[in-house]
């Protein structure tokens, strides 16, 4: 911040400040949220963030819905990587019910979650490119998000809000086409990612715009409860996948990339490296699947896992279980559970309190975007407006996760 600049207050008659409403629906904010900025020329003097434009009261709705009807709500948190949210929710309930998953299901989940992480990071990094003026990179890499959506579509039939998997496993096994598409993706995506990196990593304009902009120290980041790639870019090697491995992440060999200065360039590099690690994780999972018995896609928990439809029509036992699950006749333990997964933007936590009923007594989402975003207005003070815009893109704020 340049401290020689005069700082005006609101009521100063000599004030030359301009009030700028950035948002609620501004193309540069990539979502519905508003920042009221006081500008002195092109420099931001102060800012106030207003959020809540798409608040949908998910925590209230969740108190009135059975567990399996909450999965579609989690889709709509971070809708750029909904499978991670879905899996996080399933694992929370499985933790509550003490269900142990077969290894094959864990590996299938790892594939899905890492694909979702790649699609999340593609959005963030290509948009940093877009906002610094590099439209080409956006077009090169963004088509792979489409390929990831095609893989989702093959597995669960949906693309954006996936509702993928069930409590206790998946609703159906991955078919041959899905595996073929994953293999195709594994072959083609590294080529494109390499090309993407060639275009940006050593690009003079890109580095000038991003390096040394919006630096954050590890102390600041921890004080603001940052998590995910943003925290790792400051140099703190915290990753939920490593610190508290879930879904058999402990079986995999991968690295947690960290930055040094916490600036936008470091965040970009951390996300890029995470995409490489995700590709390696998917490859490892595909290899591990070959050693697992085929055809297992859910745990053996008939009390909680909905039976297949044709079983319901033809098999008495399946019909009974179907009825009991849908009518909520099965007791869940009275307990409190906190489960965290590494979402695209950081630690995505589910705090579930169950009082023995068929719906949660209370469900709270720890949403990384919401918590990461509160530093934005404070960070922007003294920054150029155009830098604040790329700072916002590099934080990858998703409006759905911000407001819940």
């Amino acid at each position: 911040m340049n401290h020689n600049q005069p700082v005006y207050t609101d009521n100063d008659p000599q004030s030359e400040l301009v009030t700028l409403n950035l948002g609620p629906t501004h193309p540069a904010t990539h979502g519905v949220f508003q920042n009221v900025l006081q500008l002195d020329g092109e420099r931001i003097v102060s800012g106030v963030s207003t959020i809540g434009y798409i608040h949908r009261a998910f925590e209230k709705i969740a108190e009135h819905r059975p567990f399996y009807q909450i999965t579609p709500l989690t889709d709509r948190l971070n809708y750029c990587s909904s499978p991670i949210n879905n899996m996080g929710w399933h694992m929370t309930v499985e933790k509550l019910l003490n269900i142990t998953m077969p290894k094959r299901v864990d590996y299938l989940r790892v594939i899905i979650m890492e694909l979702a992480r790649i699609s999340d990071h593609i959005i963030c990094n290509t948009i940093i490119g877009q906002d610094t003026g590099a439209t080409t990179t956006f077009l090169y890499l963004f088509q792979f998000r489409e390929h990831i959506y095609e893989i989702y579509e093959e597995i669960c039939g949906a693309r954006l809000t996936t509702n993928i998997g069930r409590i206790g496993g998946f609703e159906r096994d991955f078919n041959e086409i899905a595996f073929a598409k994953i293999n195709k993706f594994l072959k083609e995506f590294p080529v494109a990612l390499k090309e993407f990196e060639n275009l940006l990593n050593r690009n003079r304009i890109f580095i000038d715009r991003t390096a040394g902009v919006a630096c954050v120290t590890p102390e600041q980041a921890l004080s603001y409860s940052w998590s995910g790639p943003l925290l790792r870019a400051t140099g703190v090697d915290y990753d939920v996948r490593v610190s508290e491995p879930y879904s058999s992440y402990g079986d995999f060999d991968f690295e947690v990339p960290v930055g040094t200065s916490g600036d936008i360039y470091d965040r970009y590099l951390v996300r890029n490296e995470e995409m490489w690690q995700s590709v390696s994780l998917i490859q490892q999972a595909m290899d591990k699947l070959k050693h697992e018995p085929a055809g297992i896609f859910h745990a053996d928990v008939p009390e909680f896992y909905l039976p297949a439809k044709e079983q319901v029509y033809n098999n008495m036992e399946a019909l009974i279980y179907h009825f009991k699950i849908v009518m909520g006749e099965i007791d869940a333990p009275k307990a409190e559970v906190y489960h965290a997964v590494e979402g695209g933007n950081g630690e995505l936590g589910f705090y579930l309190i169950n009082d023995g009923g068929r719906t949660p007594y209370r469900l709270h989402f720890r949403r990384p975007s919401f918590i990461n975003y509160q530093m934005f207005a404070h960070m922007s003070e003294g920054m150029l407006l155009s830098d604040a815009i790329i700072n916002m893109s590099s934080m990858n704020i998703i409006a759905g996760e911000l407001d819940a």
Partner: protein
Amino acid sequence: MAAITNQELITILGDKFGDKIVNVSEPYGLLTFETSKDVIISVLTFLKESRNTDFNFLTDITAVHYPEKKHGIAVVYHLHSMVKRVRVRIKVFIDEHHPHIPTATVLWNGANWMERETYDLFGVKFDGHPDLRRILNMDELGVHPMLKQYPLEDPNRVDKKDEYFGR
């Protein structure tokens, strides 16, 4: 840095705060205890700054409403020690008709929006908070919607009764 077990943590806290730490349990391995609002900030400060505990990360602040209890609102803190690789959950039960509790923004900047959200949804007033305004709902709402007395749906509707959804 060695990890610390829940048992060691209970001992450290017991030595320091004695009978202010009550109802200690470990659901699913996560150390949970209750304390009172007059010592909550000292407990949080101790956990954050003591070299033996090192809870440097505030994971979350939220609240739960229990209308049938005498102190009907539980403010719940989740802390995480990345160094000692342990999490802890702290609950403070406060009077629902006089929901005041000191703010944790003095310790973590990140507590700011978490407390605003809790105020917005539950009406918990965090004393000393620099900017305690609603955050998700509109300023004119007038109620704190996550309290259990407010129904989800219009109570006059017959097709949206809670029993159809299991409550």
